[in-house]
């Protein structure tokens, strides 16, 4: 069985081309079923940045043709190890526009669930999900915020710690602040009030996120109980001045106040930042924080690449071991044939036959155990497509001679980095007695 990947992604294709190839969940599932065609395997992964078809069948070329016919001028084609490594990188967020973004892992899971998977693609996608989780848990690739709104919420956590129970005063009910509100609320903050020039839009926001709708002239009164102020109005002047905040500080008894100004032109007087216990971040400050965290993500991506490569190695070894399964099956069938023939030739009564069957079955199993293990171990060494074929072993002596060498993979963990060392070692001759 071969794996074939055909797809387009943001690396090569502009949005005009990607949107033509994009599929919703239902259509992706239907396409996977159609491509699988009853006997093969197919998964369709379609996100805003990529549409990829993963296929597995006996003839890789046929699968590739099928996939290409669906995607038209496909921009990249990968097979077997390269396709597996690509999917592992995708699941880990290493192929995304923002390295380590978390959404892709869920999208890979959805594609896997909707796909027409068999043993090969099922294993591939399960291992890809595992690789994605591992890369996120063992590196900090997904920890830092990748957008202005999530950076604002993360900075609020730097001031207050857990945002559970912290109150937010929203000034301006435009679309700009909505993502930041969602981020703050998802981290446990409570929207206390929404102040807006028009009450209608403020009401709409309070219905969705909670809190009380206010007019803009009540903002100063609300400063006393708010922990976070999020402002994004289109007002031409200051909505809050230093003096207004200073007056509110006396009643706050030293509690810190975090202010987020997402508006351009700015809503909050920059002099507020000079007040003790007040921390004001405008859009430029937040963008600088995001830019810095993206640098950190790229650095972490290098560590994640190592993890993903290891997982791809494991998958390759597993896939290679599949090639010897027919050979093992035919070997066992041939041995059973010989055993049956010999037992039939022997003149035994029922009791003796039962005893002889039991003994010969046990002997056969013990004899075949070691060659079976060794064939599985040796298979990753052989180039793909040249693995042991079923017919090649039938009628030949058992491969009991020791393989001259095998690869031993050593993993050494040091300071968070995993090093993979390949060494060539002679097999133990005692475990492979010569005939």
């Amino acid at each position, binding site marked *: 069985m071969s794996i074939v990947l055909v797809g387009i992604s943001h690396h090569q294709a502009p949005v005009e081309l990607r949107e033509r190839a994009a599929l919703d969940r239902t259509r992706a599932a239907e396409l996977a079923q159609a491509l699988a065609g009853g006997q093969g395997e197919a998964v369709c992964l379609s996100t805003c940045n990529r549409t990829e078809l993963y296929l597995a069948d006996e003839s890789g070329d046929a699968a590739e043709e099928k996939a290409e016919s669906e995607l038209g001028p496909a921009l990249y084609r990968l097979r077997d190890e390269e396709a597996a490594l690509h999917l592992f990188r995708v699941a880990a967020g290493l192929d995304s526009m923002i390295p380590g973004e978390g959404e892709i892992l869920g999208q890979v899971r959805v594609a896997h669930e909707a796909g027409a998977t068999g043993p090969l693609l099922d294993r591939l996608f399960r291992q890809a999900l595992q690789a994605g989780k591992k890369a996120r848990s063992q590196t900090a690739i997904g920890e830092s915020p990748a957008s202005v709104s999530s950076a604002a919420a993360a*900075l609020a*956590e730097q001031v*207050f710690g857990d945002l559970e129970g912290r109150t937010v005063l929203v000034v301006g009910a435009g679309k700009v602040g909505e993502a930041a509100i969602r981020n703050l609320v998802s981290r446990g903050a409570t929207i206390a009030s929404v102040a807006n020039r028009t009450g209608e839009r403020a009401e709409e926001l309070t219905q969705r996120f909670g809190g009380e709708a206010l007019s803009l002239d009540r903002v100063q009164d609300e400063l006393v109980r708010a922990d976070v102020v999020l402002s994004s109005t289109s007002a031409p002047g200051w909505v809050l001045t230093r003096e207004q905040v200073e007056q509110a500080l006396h009643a706050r*008894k*030293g509690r*810190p106040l975090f202010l987020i100004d997402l508006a351009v032109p700015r809503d909050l007087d920059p002099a507020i930042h000079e007040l003790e216990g007040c921390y004001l971040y405008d859009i430029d400050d937040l963008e600088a924080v995001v830019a810095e965290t993206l640098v950190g993500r790229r650095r972490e991506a290098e560590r994640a690449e190592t993890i993903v490569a290891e997982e791809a190695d494991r998958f390759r070894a597993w896939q290679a071991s599949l090639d010897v399964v027919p050979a093992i099956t035919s070997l066992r069938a041939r041995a059973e044939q010989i055993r049956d023939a010999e037992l039939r030739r022997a003149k035994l009564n029922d009791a003796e036959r039962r005893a002889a069957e039991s003994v010969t079955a046990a002997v056969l199993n013990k004899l075949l155990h070691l060659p079976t293990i060794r064939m599985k171990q040796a298979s990753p060494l052989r180039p793909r497509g040249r693995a042991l074929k079923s017919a090649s072993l039938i009628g030949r002596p058992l491969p009991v001679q020791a393989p001259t060498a095998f690869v031993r993979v050593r993993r050494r963990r040091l300071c*968070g980095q995993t090093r993979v060392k390949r060494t060539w070692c002679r097999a133990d001759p005692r475990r492979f007695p010569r005939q």
Partner: protein
Amino acid sequence: MAELLFWPALLAYSEAAVAYLNDVRHPGVAGRLATWGVRVGWLVQTALLAVQATRANGFPWSTWGGSLNLFVWFVVGAYLIWGCQPRYRLLGLAVLPLAVLLFILARVGGGTGVGSRSHYSNLFLVLHVGLVLAAFAGFTLAAALSALYLWQERRLKRRESSILRLRAPALSRLDEVAARTIAFALPALTLGIAVGIARLRERGGGFDVLMAVTIVTWTVYAASLALRHLAGWRGRRAAYLVLAGFVLVAVVRLALPVTHFAT
């Protein structure tokens, strides 16, 4: 035996101090190694103290060196309560080098060997020396938390773009934990001072400089708690006050104790 236990404890603390430094540059494994270094070092030091107490059949830490040894044990023990959390590992950067330095001083002062038993009663020593040292350990930790607060606050005020890359504990949490540590340490110091004064009145004796500075220290920390609750002194002002109190603790622990231990 006691002498032999000093070296592994010092080695573990030193490893932790170096690992904390490395954790700032490469967070992850180094931080975990540091935490384990602190745990192992503290357990070995506990064994050292147990051996000392068994050999002396009493409270052998009433000397200057001995009290430093016990003080280090209190400081590291108190740190372990929070130090195991990844966010508080930055605190280890301040606490562990200090612990290593004081532990070496304790050895130089002869506080890690088997000393002779003091002529004071065990109960008095536990209540007076033990409680005062525990309180000072709490103030030391509070000072480290306050220093971390000021550093983190400075980063927020300067709007450092790297603030989310090297994350420190949240400002409010640092402020609360420092105040809570003082709230635990202050009663211990109060009781320790009361026991000392009671003994002074019973047996007689002079009032030395160390006693005076200790009472001033008590006043500073009591004032910090009172101002916090009554006047809303939190954040930066409270942190400066805690650090001022710590200067007095350092004077009491390092500069003045010789005269006091002689009386």
